[in-house]
């Protein structure tokens, strides 16, 4: 029933469902060697009272970037993490992927603790940072191969997946050119492919489509949707609420480091008696501004 609802939403939002189904069949998984194969837990991400405070300047209070949030992301779920600028989305992701140490609280990624098991976590995640982070002097293909090698993938597997992903995201023709000459949209696509090359179990996508033109953005959203269909857990932040509504199984709305609400787009729309998720977002985050919370 939910899948039908998703299809209707996708069609309304002009994201091509057939294309998504077709893409799904093209993404063949990478059969990982025994030593880096991990059991797939029912809960992929379990955030428990996670806090991150940054020390304030002299005479000022600490900045509470993330202030005791708790939630769970199920395996195979496309989870949208929404909030205005500076709400704490990227800080949360950075704690989950081991780039920032939490002030308090913890999180489990596929049952591995972010305080103790980071090497294991890094084996099974793919990260697409907000700003494209690629080596500009290297070509697209060389960048992808570098990250495949860092994940110890066999050479032929790197080649195979590189070819598939470049074709899907229409970057094959530019793949031999230095990334220095790529447009902003192309850099973002390369950024996404690098995150996917090792066929990660869990994907962290921090505003993956920001700055893309509408055509490329739609194509990228279709691709992200197809990843969900091959059972990837996707933790996504975005400012495109409409697309989050169409694709995400559940969304969490965060502001000033606090989790304001969580649920399926449909449930949130009903709860807040709104026409769409954007309305819900505005009601929740706007109310806080109006009330001076």
């Amino acid at each position: 029933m939910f899948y039908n609802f998703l299809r209707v939403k996708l069609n309304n939002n002009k994201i091509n469902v057939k294309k998504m189904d077709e893409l799904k069949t093209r993404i063949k998984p990478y059969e990982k060697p025994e030593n880096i194969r991990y059991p797939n837990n029912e809960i992929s991400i379990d955030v428990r009272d996670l806090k991150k405070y940054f020390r304030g300047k002299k005479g000022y209070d600490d900045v509470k970037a993330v202030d005791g949030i708790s939630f769970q992301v199920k395996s195979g779920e496309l989870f949208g993490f929404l909030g205005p600028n500076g709400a704490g989305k990227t800080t949360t992701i950075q704690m989950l992927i081991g780039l920032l140490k939490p002030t308090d609280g913890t999180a489990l990624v596929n049952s591995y603790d972010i305080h103790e098991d980071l090497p294991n976590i890094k084996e099974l995640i793919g990260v697409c940072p907000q700003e494209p982070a690629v080596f500009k002097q290297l070509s697209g293909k060389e960048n992808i191969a570098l990250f495949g090698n860092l994940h110890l993938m066999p050479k032929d597997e790197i080649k195979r997946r590189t070819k598939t992903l470049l074709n899907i995201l229409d970057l094959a023709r530019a793949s031999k050119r230095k990334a220095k000459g790529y447009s902003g949209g192309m850099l973002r696509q390369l950024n996404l492919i690098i995150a996917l090359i090792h066929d990660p179990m869990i994907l962290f996508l921090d505003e993956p489509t920001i700055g893309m033109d509408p055509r490329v953005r739609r194509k990228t959203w279709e691709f992200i949707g197809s990843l969900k269909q091959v059972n990837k857990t996707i933790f996504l932040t975005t400012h495109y609420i409409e697309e989050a509504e169409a694709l995400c199984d559940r969304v969490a709305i965060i502001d000033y480091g606090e989790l304001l609400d969580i649920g399926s787009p449909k449930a949130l729309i009903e709860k807040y008696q709104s026409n769409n998720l954007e309305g819900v977002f505005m009601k929740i985050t706007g109310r806080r501004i109006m009330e001076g919370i």
Partner: protein
Amino acid sequence: MKKQRVLALLKMELIKVIREPAFLFIMLLFPAVLTIVFGFAFSDPALGMSFNAMAPGLFAYACIFIIMTVAQSFSDIREQGLLKRLNTTPMTSGDFMGSQVLSNMIIAILQVLIVFLLALPFGFSPSTNIGGLLLAFLLMAIFSLSSVGLGLITATISKSSGTATGLSFIFILPQMFFGTFIPITDSTRLIALTLPSYYATDAISSIFSGASLLSSNILIDFAFISIVSITIVIIGILLFKKYGNK
């Protein structure tokens, strides 16, 4: 450390040097230009200066500039968010630092080779055998470790790659003026004795002047360069890991 990761990172570093004109100039063309210019300027016997005495200093001179490129390169990848991205992969700091050390050692050896080959037409004639040449190359490779370490220290205290370039001269200038081919007076000798480039130049001068490879002078210089370079690179790695990786 995993071989596949180290080799991939090493390849990336070498491609960066070849494709980035500024790096290519400082790493490979600068030593060549320097040797040719000094060759023309000082190879005339009428000047009373011997190019044979100057060439060993040129070897060290070229390697010293690794400090600047390492500082720039690390500050660059930190600024572009690449260090953070690399840190989200299973790559260990050993893989990363190992590839940096290896790539800079290869570059140092290439620099020495360029200086050596270009110095020959200007009358440079080392009085040593193949063993002596290999030892000279090995010495410069080890000496390059100190440059990598000082580059990492520079990157740690620099906020941007522009600052890193400027700050790197704190380490480059003293080694250039007191430790290579510029004549040392009694008053500057004291400073020179604290610099690894002085010992590198001294050892290479001894090797190329035909001294026994096992002479106490060469062995002491070799031991000093090895201990100091390894210590500096370890300090550089630890400092960068703790403070520079943010």
